[in-house]
Every structure is written in structure tokens, then in C-alpha cells.
């Protein structure tokens, strides 16, 4: 009799062998459909897949499987289990059950039923349940035969009833029943030997079929593979799919990371496997998403829709072979495939796209950064933000005490947060002890750092600033060094205590040079700093009409990708003082504003500025900036000074 596939069989096993649905459909049993290659018939109706769920593992799971025939059922479900383990999609979790008691029973081995296929376990369990169920029906939970002992798990209230049966004679053998606190043997552990064998065999298959030189995994004509056939892998559609999955998993999981895998495994052949839908081997798209070459020739794919499950997967697939499938006679299938596989260059040996076309197509698929605009200053007619910043940074570099006394009062808040990159905390020593990065504060509100690293009031702020390294910010008039966004907003508290007042938020992005002489640290840092300005208190008479309510400084290491040799931003090297009073260092523009649009805007601003300062025409200003100065405003100005004498009169805007 044909073995059903585990306990899930029920609804699918509607007919005899010939119509076993998704169960077993080994073609060579059917003389009319013999496949001469011995290919795997992975083409059972999709309905069969519904049976591949957790049911397959359960035939020995205690009582659940009892109604079904044993014997080979167990074998195939065990193979299925092993395969599943290696496909990595389902381990039986053994949950601790607190209301269960575990009992150990000795005696089954010497009973008359011991030579039954299940070792007599089922008969024993029936016996125990029948004998123990006096006042109420008692059901035994999990059970397992391990060596001489039968282990059962019962509800703790029922344990006594079973223990009562200690000494009873079961088909000629006295039973010894004891309660135990030992852990029940794990089915996983019990079958691990067989599992190891299965794995070993599958590994041998993979080893035999993998060509490291070609980075090629040949999974063609699996049906004619001796090892796989001997394992009974093709006894059913379900097992064949699992075997495939396990093979792919084994082949693709031996790499440390996806990069290594991408390098080592670039081509797969699934030729001559009688596939009629790639659904049957879909997992390939998960295991090897970066595959470059794929051979599906000689299968049974009869239309484009049978490949559709892989649509838009395999983004880097360059080469695809479909020769020998009925679908290649279909019209327009090439056009569709080109859509589905953006990197496809070679289809059935024909070039269908150039590498340039591929590169262009791939680029268009990636999201791109949002366009970058220059500073957005909406600080009202008085240009408060501009004037404030022009005062602020030079004073921060030279006279912090005065800066605090002029712009901060007893209610001002200051904190800084440093975002060091992994591995180089030394360069951040001056800052980390102050860093108020709430992200790092477990339990946000309760962390003492919240208060300790918040500096409120001008006195505390002044003290704290003394501990920070010496800095030098570039001049505010240097275009390209700063990105400042600011706008006014209503509803701050009015310092008079009545009503509300307007505020100004200023977000500054820039960089500064730093010298921490005590730690021998020098370098350039990028930073963001946000200020909230509000009206000053009327008393004592303020120096300025506005004060700093809040000042948050964030320090980070950020190098625009284009400039960085390695992806990780690099901390400035030690012992290499960049702050050097003799040479005026050229600081690279912070954001290296990437999109052309904003670049043009900046450039036109620079041209205008240079023209204003030098009196040159826009045309000559542009020439000056775009030449050796390479859009460095200071260099352009310098080169203007040097060449001024030799410039023709038409270089200058005519005097009015």
C-alpha cells in the first residue's frame, strides 16, 4: 500500500494512488507518463501544498496521529521533519507546561506488543487511559518511547490515577510507573542522529553539485540524483520541494554574510526538473536574491505566468535560460521579462540589453535624496538670525564668557549631544561626558543624565563651556560653509509674564576646527546647532532685545559620501594640528550640496557676491570662480587680487 504523507493526509487522499493530489506523485509509477530522464515531477497541483503545514511533523506526537497507519508514515514524516529543519522553517518548540506531570514507565519492552511497529506504545497508552479513567476520562498528553522507558505527560490532577497502575501487568509484563522531575526526552534530540544523517547526505549532494570556480550550483535533473532518490526524497511532491529548499538552504547558508554569499554563489541551474511553475522553487528568490545567472531550460513552463512568482525578484539577474520550455513560443515574453528583471542582459544566449542600459535602469529604480536648497532665512525684516549668528560664532570661538553674559540668562538651557562613530571614542573624550543623547538613556525620563547633562542658567552654561575644546568656526560670510534655516513662530511665553511672544528658531549646520590641546586632539568636526531666541527680560536691562532660550549642539562626524574614501566617516587624525595660525585652512564646504539645482543657486549667489565685492561683471566673476578657484570664494577673491592689474576694462561693470 502506498504510504500516506503524515497525518495531514485526510482530505487530500480522496482516491487511490493515481489521484493522491499533492501527496505522492512519483511519475515512474505511471507507465504512460514515464519521464526518461528520471526528472523530479515537481508539478503536482498546487493544492497539495496546503498540506505541508505543521501537521507533517506530528505523527508521533502522542495521541494526535493514532488514527492513522504507522510504519512508513513515520519515515516520510521524519524525512520531512529533517528536511524542514535544514530548510530552517520550523522547529518544534517544546514549551514548558506548568500544570503537567511527567511519568516514566518501565516494562513495555518485555511485553508481548513490543514488536509492533511503534514498539507497542499505542497499545500501552490505550491500556493506561482505559484503566485510569474511572471517575473521569483521563487523557495522556505527550508520550515518547526512549530506550526501555516510556515517558508520558499528563495533567497533574490525573497523575495519581496513573500512578495507581504501578505494578499492573500489561500483556504479560509488570509495569513500573514513577513520577519524575527529569525533562522528557526531546523529540528533536531523539531524531537528531537521523537528522544528522539526512543533513550529511544533503551536504554531499550540494558538495557534488557546487562548482566553486564557476560559482555555480547545479541543481539540474535532481530526479536522477542517486543520493536523493535513495533517501526517498521524491516520494512526494511535498518532499521534493522540501528537499530542494533544504539544498538551497545548505548551499546558501554556509557564508558569513550576504556579501560573501553574493560572491561565492552567482549561478544556479534548475534545468530539466520538470518544473511547471517557479512557485515550486520560489524559495530560491529568498535564499539567493542576488543571483546573476539562472538556467531554467528544459522545464515545463508553458507561459509567462508560470514565471510570474519571481517577477521583480532577482534584481541582479543578468543571464536567464528558458530554452526548451513551451513559453518561449509565446509572443512578447521577452519584453515582459525585461521589465521583470532589470539587470537581464542575456536571454537564452541572446543579448537583450547592454550593461549601460542596465546600469541606467537600476539607477532609476533607486530612491534619491530630496533636492537641496540653500539656507532658508525667514527671520523677519530685522535679519535677527543673521546678525545673531554673526555675533555668536566668533564670540564662541574667542570669548565664551562674554557670549553667555550677553545672550543667555538664568532660564536659558544648553546641552550637547555627541554621536561618535564606533571604535574611536577617544576623539570624543572631551564631549562624551556631557553628551545628552536621550536615545542612549534607557527609560528616558528616569535617567539621571537627563538632569546632570542639562545646563540651565548662564552661570552653569559658562562653566561648562570652559571645559569644551577651543574651536574656530568659519566666517558667516563664507558661502557654502553653512546651511541655516530659520523662521519666526508665535506662542512663546512673554518674559513680562503676560501673554505670549514671538520666537525665532534657528537651525545651523556647519563645521568647525577644534583644538583640544590637553588631549592632543585636533581636527574638524561637523555639527548642527539649534537655537530658540525669544524676547529678553526687561530687567536687568538687557544688552540685546532677544536672548537664547534654548541652545542644543549636536556634534557628529559626517563626511559626504563622495569625498570619503571609505564609507564610515573618519575621525580627524590625532596629532595633526589643523588649526594653524599661519596658513588659512581651506575647509571643505560641509554639505557638498549634491543636486545640481541647488548647486546652481549657490553658484549664482557666489557670482553675485564676488561681483559686488570686486566690481567685476557677472561673466568675469563666474570665470574667476570656476577657474583655478574651483568655486572656493576666498581663493577666487585672492586670485582676483593677484590678477586685478592685468584684467581688461570690460571685466568690470562700467561706472555709473
Amino acid at each position, binding site marked *: 500500500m502506498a504510504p500516506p504523507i503524515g497525518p495531514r493526509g485526510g482530505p487530500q487522499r480522496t482516491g487511490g494512488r493515481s489521484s493522491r493530489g499533492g501527496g505522492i506523485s512519483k511519475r515512474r509509477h505511471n507507465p504512460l507518463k514515464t519521464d526518461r530522464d528520471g526528472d523530479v515531477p515537481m508539478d503536482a497541483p498546487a493544492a497539495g501544498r496546503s498540506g505541508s503545514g505543521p501537521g507533517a511533523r506530528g505523527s508521533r506526537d502522542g495521541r494526535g496521529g493514532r488514527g492513522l497507519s504507522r510504519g512508513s508514515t513515520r519515515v516520510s514524516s521524519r524525512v520531512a521533519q529533517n528536511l524542514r529543519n535544514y530548510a530552517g522553517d520550523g522547529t518544534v518548540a517544546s514549551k514548558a507546561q506548568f500544570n503537567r506531570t511527567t511519568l516514566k514507565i518501565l516494562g513495555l519492552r518485555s511485553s508481548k506488543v513490543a514488536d509492533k511497529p511503534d514498539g507497542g506504545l499505542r497499545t500501552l497508552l490505550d491500556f493506561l487511559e482505559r484503566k485510569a479513567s474511572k471517575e473521569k476520562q483521563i487523557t495522556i498528553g505527550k508520550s515518547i518511547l526512549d530506550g526501555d522507558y516510556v515517558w508520558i505527560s499528563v495533567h497533574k490532577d490525573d497523575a495519581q490515577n496513573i500512578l495507581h497502575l504501578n505494578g499492573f501487568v500489561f500483556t504479560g509484563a509488570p509495569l513500573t510507573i514513577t513520577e519524575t522531575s527529569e525533562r522528557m526526552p526531546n523529540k528533536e534530540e531523539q531524531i537528531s542522529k537521523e537528522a544528522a544523517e539526512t543533513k550529511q547526505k544533503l551536504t554531499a549532494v550540494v558538495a557534488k553539485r557546487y562548482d566553486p570556480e564557476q560559482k555555480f550550483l547545479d541543481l539540474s535533473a535532481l530526479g536522477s540524483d542517486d543520493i536523493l532518490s535513495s533517501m526517498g526524497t521524491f516520494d512526494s511532491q511535498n518532499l521534493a520541494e522540501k528537499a530542494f529548499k533544504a539544498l538551497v538552504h545548505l548551499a546558501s547558508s554556509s557564508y558569513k554574510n550576504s556579501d560573501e554569499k553574493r560572491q561565492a554563489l552567482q549561478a544556479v541551474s534548475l534545468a530539466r526538473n520538470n518544473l511547471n511553475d517557479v512557485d515550486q522553487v520560489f524559495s530560491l528568490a529568498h535564499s539567493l536574491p542576488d543571483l546573476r545567472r539562472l538556467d531554467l531550460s528544459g522545464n515545463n513552463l508553458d507561459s509567462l505566468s508560470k514565471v510570474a512568482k519571481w517577477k521583480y525578484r532577482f534584481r541582479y539577474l543578468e543571464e536567464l535560460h528558458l530554452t526548451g520550455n513551451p513559453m518561449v513560443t509565446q509572443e512578447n515574453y521577452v519584453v515582459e521579462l525585461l521589465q521583470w528583471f532589470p539587470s537581464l542582459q542575456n536571454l537564452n544566449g541572446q543579448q537583450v540589453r547592454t550593461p549601460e542600459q542596465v546600469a541606467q535602469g537600476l539607477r532609476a529604480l533607486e530612491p534619491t535624496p530630496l533636492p537641496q536648497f540653500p539656507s532658508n532665512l525667514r527671520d523677519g525684516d530685522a535679519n535677527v538670525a543673521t546678525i545673531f549668528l554673526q555675533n555668536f560664532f566668533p564670540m564662541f570661538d574667542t570669548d565664551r564668557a562674554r557670549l553667555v553674559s550677553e545672550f543667555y540668562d538664568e532660564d536659558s*538651557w544648553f546641552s550637547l549631544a555627541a554621536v561618535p562613530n564606533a571604535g574611536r571614542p577617544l576623539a570624543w573624550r572631551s564631549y562624551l561626558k556631557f553628551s545628552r543623547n536621550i536615545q542612549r538613556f534607557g527609560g528616558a525620563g528616569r535617567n539621571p543624565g537627563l538632569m546632570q547633562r542639562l545646563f540651565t542658567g548662564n552661570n552653569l552654561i559658562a562653566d561648562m563651556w570652559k571645559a569644551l575644546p577651543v574651536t574656530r568656526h568659519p566666517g558667516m560670510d563664507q558661502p557654502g560653509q553653512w546651511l541655516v534655516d530659520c523662521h519666526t513662530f508665535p506662542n512663546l511665553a512673554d518674559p513680562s509674564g503676560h501673554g505670549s511672544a514671538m520666537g525665532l528658531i534657528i537651525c545651523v549646520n556647519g563645521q568647525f576646527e577644534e583644538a583640544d590641546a590637553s588631549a592632543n586632539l585636533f581636527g574638524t568636526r561637523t555639527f548642527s546647532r539649534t537655537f530658540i531666541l525669544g524676547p529678553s527680560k526687561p530687567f536687568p536691562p538687557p544688552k540685546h532685545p532677544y536672548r537664547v532660550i534654548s541652545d542644543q549642539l549636536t556634534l557628529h562626524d559626517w563626511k559626504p559620501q563622495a569625498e570619503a574614501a571609505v564609507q564610515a566617516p573618519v575621525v580627524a587624525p590625532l596629532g595633526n594640528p589643523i588649526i594653524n595660525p599661519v596658513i588659512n585652512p581651506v575647509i571643505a564646504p560641509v554639505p557638498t550640496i549634491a543636486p545640481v539645482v541647488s548647486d546652481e543657486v549657490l553658484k549664482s549667489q557666489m557670482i553675485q557676491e564676488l561681483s559686488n565685492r570686486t566690481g567685476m561683471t557677472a561673466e568675469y566673476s563666474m570665470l574667476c570662480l570656476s577657474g583655478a578657484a574651483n568655486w572656493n570664494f576666498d581663493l577666487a577673491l585672492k586670485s582676483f587680487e593677484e590678477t586685478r592689474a592685468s584684467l581688461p576694462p570690460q571685466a568690470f561693470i562700467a561706472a555709473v
Partner: protein
Amino acid sequence: MAVTDHEENVRRSAEAAKEFVEWYYNNLNQGKPVSSGYVDKNKSYQAASIKADITINGSPPITPEEWDAKLAAQRTPPAAAASTAGDPSLAPKVHYEVDCYDVHVINADYRAGATSTQLEKLGKPGVRMMLMLSVSGTVTFGSGDGATKQHLNDTFILVPNWDALSRAGSRNTRRYLVFSHTYRAY
């Protein structure tokens, strides 16, 4: 020792910031809209004609809906639209990684948009706060070899969501809403 009002403000502001940051960037990373986190969608603020100021990379101010639309368009460039229609897991990714955030209370007695009942009910310290939150991190555009990265600096002014704060058990609504948002990624 009794907790001072100042301490209560500091503590609550950090909690509000944490809650907001987690919600906001989770939504961004899952491709969900964030416009509901801005004052514009809130009835109390609508009644008071208070709208959020949103500036993206220095752009002229936009509305929360426009910001959602910009993000959606960015996630799926026109060329990739067809390939992602059926399966969001195939969508090109724009991933936000927050490295750091910090928050200050800039007005501990914020009142705009609230009814007098709400003001009375929410009279305790650490509630009626106007907050300045700055977030810094990394944005990754796309995946694999083609991915590019930018540094992100997001600054928000947050104000109370009066309705959510005055109603008990409104865990699922934003308790603080964005009144100002300045985004810079470079």
C-alpha cells in the same frame, strides 16, 4: 525629596521626545504617512488657525500632506512604481536611523489652541509644554551597491495635543504634535 516643577518638565519632555521619535521614524521606515503627527490635522489647532511650518532641505514651507506625498514619491521613483505595486516588500527602501536626540522645554506654560477647560485640567507641570527636539541620524537611500547615505538633522517644535492629553486612556494618539519641522539631510 519632592520633585520640582523643573525636574518634572525635564522628565516629561524626555518621555514625550522618546514617544515621538519612535513613532515618527517607525512610520517613515514603514512607509506610513506622518501627517497625523502635525498640528494641522488636529481640530483644536485647526480652530485656532495654527498650522505647522515645515521646511525640507531649505525648501519653501509645505503642508504635512505635501510632505507625505514627497516621501512617498521618494520611496518609489516612477521607474520602480510598476515593480512594487503588488508587493511592498519589493519597494526600494529609504531607511532612517536615529543616532541621537535631545529635547528642551522652551515654554513650560504653553496655552495656544486649548480651551479653558483643558488648560485647567492640564495644569500640572510637565504637560503644557512647548518642546524643541533635535534628532540626528542617517538616511539610507536604496539598498545594496546602489545605496547612498546622508546625514540627517531633523528639528521639531512640539506642542501638546490638547484632545489626547485631556482624554484618559488615549494611548494611541500622539500626545505632542509638530508645530515646526526643519529637515536637513546632506
